[in-house]
């Protein structure tokens, strides 16, 4: 995972180039020049797992089967987010090599994702993609959050799972069956854009926070209502994966700050990985 960010402006580009030279020289063992002083801040995104209107719980809590009778519970939920970009009056900040493996915790604690070296100022939009782009997905010998040790790489076909839900489906009658939704394939990549209600001010040398809600239940709800008794497993079939991907494209929203309503992230281009 790379948590530094890349601002886009002539001055900032110069700083970025200097910083990269510093890194290159440091890797050769010589003394590294002092990094250019550019007062910056940190923006932390808190991702809150939800199922419908409730906080995500992975403690045996059962949720209604969205498309049929019975219920389901979750043991594990993970998603790859990539290509984070902040934008607003302060400019545009592109996180380089931007890939994050978000693991939702059983305890309900939000997943924190920090963007460092953010130029101070006001930002009112976040772009983020669910999944990894086609170039990254064409091989799996990556490091960082794409290291196959994260158990998000397929072992039967080169590529990554973008979205994982694991748990158990409890039909109204009969035995429970494993819930295994492993959604991958480059066609499942979904770039989103999110308005930040009221914007967020990143202070010079300080930190700011934005809360995002990830409604895992939405991945089973709209536009394709999923009956988990009929579809407890999504793995190899691209048609099944497309159903869930269409749904999860609408699962992230930005919480409003005081006095502001929330804002749902929307798809930029449904199935056009870069």
């Amino acid at each position, binding site marked *: 995972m790379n948590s530094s960010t890349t601002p886009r402006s002539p001055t900032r580009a110069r700083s970025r180039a200097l910083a990269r030279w510093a890194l290159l020289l440091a890797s*050769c063992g010589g003394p590294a020049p002092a990094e250019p002083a550019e007062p910056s801040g940190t923006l932390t995104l808190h991702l809150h797992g939800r199922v419908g209107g409730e906080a995500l719980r992975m403690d045996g809590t059962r949720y209604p089967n969205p498309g049929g009778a019975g219920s389901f519970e979750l043991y594990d939920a993970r998603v790859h987010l990539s290509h984070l970009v902040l934008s607003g009056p302060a400019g545009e900040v592109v996180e380089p090599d931007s890939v994050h493996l978000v693991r939702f915790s059983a305890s309900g604690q939000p997943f924190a994702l920090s963007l460092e070296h953010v130029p101070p100022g006001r930002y009112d939009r976040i772009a983020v993609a669910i999944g990894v782009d086609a170039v990254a997905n064409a*091989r*799996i*010998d990556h490091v960082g959050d794409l290291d*196959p040790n994260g158990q998000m790489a397929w072992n*039967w076909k080169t590529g990554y799972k973008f979205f994982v839900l694991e748990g158990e489906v409890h039909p109204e009658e009969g035995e429970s069956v494993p819930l295994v939704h492993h959604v991958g394939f480059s066609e499942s990549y979904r770039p989103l854009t999110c308005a930040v209600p009221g914007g967020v001010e990143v202070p010079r040398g300080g930190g700011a926070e934005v809360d995002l809600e990830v409604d895992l239940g939405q991945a089973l709800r709209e536009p394709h209502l999923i009956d988990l008794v009929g579809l407890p497993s999504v793995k190899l*079939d691209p*048609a099944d994966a497309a159903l869930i991907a269409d749904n999860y494209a609408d699962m992230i929203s930005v919480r409003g700050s005081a006095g502001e309503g929330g804002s749902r992230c929307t798809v930029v281009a449904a199935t056009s990985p870069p």
Partner: protein
Amino acid sequence: MSRGARIGALAGLAVLAACGPSADEPREPSTIPAHFPGALTVPARNPSTARGVALGRRLFYDPIVSGDRQRSCATCHDPARAFTDGVARSTAGASGRRLPRNSPTLVNLAWGSSFFWDGGAADLESQAFGPLTHPDELGVDLVELTTRLELDPSYRSAFREAFGAERIESAFVARALAQFERSLVSASSPYDDHVTGRAALDPLPARGLGLFTAKGCVECHVPPLFTDGQFHDIGLDAGFTDEDEGIHQGRYRVTHHAADLGRFKTPTLRNVEVTGPYMHDGRFDTLEQVLAHYDHGVVASANLDPRLAGEGARGIAVHDDEARALVAFLHALTDPQVLDAPAHRPP
């Protein structure tokens, strides 16, 4: 080496040169035989170096790469058998469960464009994670593996020298294994002596070579690699169950295209004398049985290769005397140098 790979290798060399004395130069997997294709499938991110190949060789034979430290890549890929195992479907993996497919030959992979019997792996670097992590194969947890390697100072220095890595990442394990596998070049069989003019084939294999061409075997088993790298249904089965997550469905499992149902990758015939049993599931013990399949065993199926679906009689007619000549020719693809090469054996 492809132009891109050459550029990548040169770029890597330039960076290393900027840092002063460093690792060995990127190099091609081995000297490319003159009668082989010039274009290799080496990713620019992983040019082969002597140190990378040596590290990959060490890892290939080291049981440290298995969950229980009891088996290595060589358990199913024995150099004396052109890196196959001599059984139809191995039970030597971590779980002891019988694998669904036959262990493939590992030679001339530097020219391969996809890996696994269904082509599911895009390159050798990505392929390596399959057998490493599968519970029925080496069954190792990658965090555990890199931790073990970090605890061994000789591995730490070997990874640093091969990849400039201060920390051992699973990606470097895969890249080292890929470099070793690409170094396994088989190009010194009697057939190679024949085509390069060093020595003529004996009469019987020479007749077999003629039959191999005349009967169309050559269309899928294209010299000099003796594979086209493509996927074909050769009439082994009339249907293909979707059990076991589609692993019996061939290329369809990867593409989900109806036309790929039952198509499996053409295996190389190099060293085929020592790589039995044959077919993706090892159903035939001998080459004679394979030829008998083509003669009278081909069954109709939706995607049967049209070259085997002739009107009247399916398959390829092979009389007994022709079979003897063809087998003699196939034996002429055995390469003692690749089977016995010290550089391919355990370090």
